[in-house]
């Protein structure tokens, strides 16, 4: 694990550390994202601490999704998207020219806002990712790992008797947990969740939040959420985003979650978390 002591340019918010240097899993350095000529994300610099949950909050359109998608190069799938700056994973820039994006995504997994299980069986949903990089895996080992992933995502008991059924036949909350299981089955190091519970009912949401707190022990987690209470409940660090007049998103504050919610340094953050707008 690489420890990085950050010396950041003075205009970006300095992370408040405990004094001791927390292990840093990923770092964004002056990252901007352009869609064609339109700048969607402006000059973001922030750390992602290992085995902690980092939340990204802010009003709609401020670039939260764009930001999280830079962490696993999912922006590449958009025609005409361009990323400047560096995104380091354990000290290596994932946007370097000789980097394979598929491997980046292997190590930095993602769960999407709307559950998107494959139109295949529950078993195959999980197995696909595992098999992709372990073509010669034995049937029994594959089954074990599928089971482990489903247990880890707290879904095993509900689906263990119907593994052959279509993933799309599950309820919304179950589908999302299936997607989480699918993501962790490939053993990533970082897990990105883009508003994972926004399409779900409160009970499913609670289950997923509980899951994330548990997963924190083994994974570094970054979550985008428009639900401030959720961010306050589960995250350790929070990044506050805002849209600039030129419609680009920027990071206006990054700090420990308690600080952000009780004693933010930026007036706009204070306004947002207190619900004055949003």
């Amino acid at each position: 694990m690489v420890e990085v002591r950050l010396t950041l340019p003075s205009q970006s918010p300095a992370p408040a550390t405990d004094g001791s240097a927390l292990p840093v899993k990923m770092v964004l350095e002056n990252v901007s994202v352009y869609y064609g000529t339109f700048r969607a994300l402006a000059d973001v610099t922030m750390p992602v601490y290992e085995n902690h949950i980092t939340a990204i909050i802010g009003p709609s359109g401020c670039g939260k999704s764009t930001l999280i998608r830079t962490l696993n190069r999912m922006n590449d799938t958009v025609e005409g998207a361009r990323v400047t700056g560096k995104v380091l994973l354990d000290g290596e820039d994932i946007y370097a020219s000789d980097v394979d994006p598929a491997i980046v995504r292997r190590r930095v997994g993602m769960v999407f806002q709307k559950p998107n299980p494959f139109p295949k069986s529950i078993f195959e949903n999980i197995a696909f990712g595992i098999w992709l990089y372990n073509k010669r895996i034995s049937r029994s080992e594959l089954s074990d790992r599928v089971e482990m992933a489903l247990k880890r995502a707290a879904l095993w008991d509900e689906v263990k008797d119907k593994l052959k059924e279509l993933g799309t036949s599950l309820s919304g909350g179950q589908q999302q947990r299936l997607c989480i299981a699918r993501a962790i089955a490939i053993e990533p190091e970082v897990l990105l969740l883009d508003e994972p519970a926004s399409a779900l009912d409160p009970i499913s949401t609670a289950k997923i939040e509980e899951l994330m707190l548990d997963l924190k022990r083994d994974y570094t987690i970054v979550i985008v959420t428009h639900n401030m209470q959720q961010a306050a409940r589960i995250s350790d660090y929070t990044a506050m985003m805002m849209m600039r007049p030129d419609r680009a998103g920027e990071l206006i504050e990054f700090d420990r979650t308690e600080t952000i919610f009780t004693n933010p340094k930026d007036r706009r953050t204070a306004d947002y978390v207190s619900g004055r707008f949003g």
Partner: protein
Amino acid sequence: MLSSTKPETAEPGYLQGDSNVRRRQTVARVGRGVLFLSLVLGLVALITLFVDVFDKLGGYAVYSFRVDPLTITPSRPLEELSREELLALIEQHVPEEAKALIPEDYGAPLEELSDEDLVNILYNEVPSPETLTAKPLEALTKEELIDVLQRNLTDVRFQTLNAEQPFEQMSREALIELIETEVLQESVARQWTLFESIFNRDAIIAEIKREYPGSDYEFKWWLTWRFLTSEQTTRPETTGIRPALLGSLFVVTLSILIAVPLGVSAGIYLEEFAGKSRLGAIIQTNIYNLAGVPSIIYGMLGLAVFARALRDFTTGAAFGVPDPPPNGRTIITAAMTMALLILPLIIVNTQEAIRAVPQSLRDAALAVGATKWETVWHHVLPVAAPGILTGTILATARALGETAPLIVVGAAAFVTLDPSGIFSSYTVVPIQIYTWTALPEQIFTRVASAAVIVLLVTVLLINLSAIILRNRLRKQI
């Protein structure tokens, strides 16, 4: 839809319409009817076409023989006839005027002439004396029938038919029928349409008895199993569509086998890999243009490239295949030409099918570390497959019905042998329809109508299955 009927019984007020509104409403009603009429016209055209084809499909037919049966059956020589028989024949067949002149020409009245003289009279005064004593077919023995066959068929034909079904084993009736078909060339002298035959039955039969006394007649269907399984001959009564069916099968199958992998690949490239690149845009415009090129131009392309320039390959001469058809007119030429023709359809259809796959599916696969191709192969294609299949089915129907390019590229008009392989000459069903319809003898339109039914039913069934498949897909989404 806005209702254009308003209660006419109330006092005309602001809403009930002054005359202007009433007029406009009437116009609207009429207009709607006129617009609907267009669809009715289309339906009428369709129905007329089908009815017309069916009408030609069968009906009463009266036969005549091209060859007089009495000229080929064994006859007794006149010399062997008894005196009574000779006298009876003279009585029956010598014209009155000639009979009156007999005493003058032969020196004595009829009854007093010698047998030799009687024979001479018959030879002189009757056109084909042998036919007088010829036995009718029905009176011949089996050996005699076989003998008739042997003497009147070419050796080759005799051997062929004998090999197909040994004459010894055939019944007398079957042999007679065979002689009627092969030697006598029984042909249709007149054919009535189906509806005439159903509704005017009695009048027709009366006419047959009057105009064609003694001739055979029956209710003939032109679309028969025999028609489907026979080879092509020059006579409408015996011709069949088998080589054309096989030719169509070969050509269409081969062209689909060529076009589908290429077309689907190109479609995948354009949708998944090309993005907004210049090259992608050029290829895309190109495909839309190709889709609008008249089909005959594809024939000319095939003629110049496959039939001429690449003649050695398409005729198999380069591979040592013996006896290549001249001018490169082989099945493989046709298939390659047809493949180019349907390629744009398959590409566009594949693109649409792939476009319909939601981006969320691709995102999900990419997010677990799949590469672009792995995403396409394992996730996008399986979901797009039914749509691609529908397009393939439609392309098959199109390929079956295409005629013009094959005419140019060299389908033969008259093919006696079934196609033997991809390097053989061929014909296809639509070309047969064309050939038969274009022949001067009216009777060939009957044969053509049988072929039209075969083609129509096949094409429409194929289209129907594609439409059903497409509707089932739409319901799933």
